[in-house]
């Protein structure tokens, strides 16, 4: 009795193993759609909404829409953004607040998108870049406004 029970267990185990192996064999012979990507040679296609880093949008005239209101700085949970403002002189001779530096600490950023949501003028957005590795940590602190850029006319 014990022998029959033991043998039926052994053969039952073997049968279930073969059932699983049949599935493995199916994929071994049907390998048409390979889902593995050879990363450095084959770049992944990222979604347009993918949050990789914060960038500031500049148009062809090297103008941006950042007024320096610090809404993004206040919205950030990690103190990733620091805005340094200066005062420009308008043609009428009035003082006008403008950004000097939009400092962005990529090493602190968690890509939560709260700064982009908070921005009232749509000056910053998330870009789908992900290759952020650098040799020196200081390179991760970026100034987002391009040199010589100024605020677009009409953005308040």
């Amino acid at each position: 009795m014990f022998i029959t029970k033991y043998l039926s267990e052994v053969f039952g185990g073997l049968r279930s193993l073969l059932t699983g192996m049949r599935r493995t064999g199916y994929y071994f012979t049907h390998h048409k759609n390979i889902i593995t990507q050879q990363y450095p040679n084959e770049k992944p296609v990222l979604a347009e909404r993918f949050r990789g880093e914060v960038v500031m949008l500049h148009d062809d005239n090297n103008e941006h829409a950042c007024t320096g209101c610090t809404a993004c700085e206040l919205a950030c949970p990690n103190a990733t953004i620091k805005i340094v403002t200066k005062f420009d002189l308008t043609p009428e001779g009035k003082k006008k607040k403008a950004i000097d530096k939009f400092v962005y600490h990529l090493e602190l950023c968690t890509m939560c998108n709260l700064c982009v949501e908070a921005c009232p003028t749509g000056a910053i957005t998330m870009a789908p870049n992900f290759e952020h590795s650098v040799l020196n940590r200081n390179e991760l602190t970026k100034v987002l406004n391009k040199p010589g850029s100024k605020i677009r006319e009409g953005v308040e």
Partner: protein
Amino acid sequence: MLQEVAQKETGDLVINVGPQHPSTHGVLHLVITLNGETIKKVEPHLGYIHRSIEKMCESLSYRQFIYSTSRMDYLSAHINNHACALAVEKGLQIEIPERAQVIRVLMDELTRLASHQLWWGALAMDVGAITPFFHAFREREVLNDIMEETCGARLTMNYMVPGGVMFDLHPNFQSRVKDFITLFKSKLPEYDELVTGNVIFQNRMKQVGFISAEDAVSYGCTGPTLRGSGVSCDIRKHHPYELYDKLQFTEPLETGGDCWARYLVRMEEMRQSLHIVEQLIDNIPEGEFQAKTKAVLKLPKGEFYSRVETARGELGVYIVSEGGLTPYRIKFRSPGFSNLSALDHMARGQKIGDLVAIMGTLDLVIPDIDR
């Protein structure tokens, strides 16, 4: 030192599993007292991945603190964010648009599916089968791509905000989810063929890690761990939030109380989640995806509690507000912590090889336990 003392007095062997052991799924440290190969005591030591999220949340505003909860139970990040958003909305007393509710439920269920897929693959790998892991990740990748397209991130989405969701659905969302449903329905029988029907796997699971319904309740187990012992505890059924009271789904219950029962509950939960997604995907109403909220959120003085069903059990978010910009105190009742506390009870008297299977069916996520 500890080992020597124990060995001299009783002949028991004390060994450490973790904190860097691959089968503990993270930095969990277990001190196991063994008599031969039989487990006499299991003592989990926590604290290796404590990031003091609760304390951090006290210095963040009601909009900001939600992102950090994705880092607790990272496999059900949407559901964690959902619980926090629900608690804040309770305080603000705002109505959520119907479209936002449907999107939230859809995302919750897709997250549950992805979480259970990973659990299935990781459990099979824990007990010695490598191939199922790749099968599970192949389907999970499709879900991750859907999340990436709509939410902008694959794991820590931060998609639920107080008042609704952050963005509207991507135009491709519906068709891609439908493709996923047809794909996954054809792949689920494969899962059963590979693992569920396997006699070796069944022998590893059956009569292992038994916990009775009374014990499971007294340890505070929730989710599939408690449902495997035959106690109905689904928050979606008993305290429905969002749209769950209007949806048709059953709560899978097993009475075995062992690893096999917990395995079957989770497999059935995958089918139920798929059923919920099927009901909603064609009926997404038009309208706003976010209710109008003030730029600066202030909760009135008082205490607010919300509870949701994550992939692992009940998650509670308790906010004490003093009426200021930041919460006075936040407490998360995480499902993993209570489920882990039952590990000692389940593992006593079992062989040391079964410990991995028991931990696998508990579906431990260590950052959720330690926070």
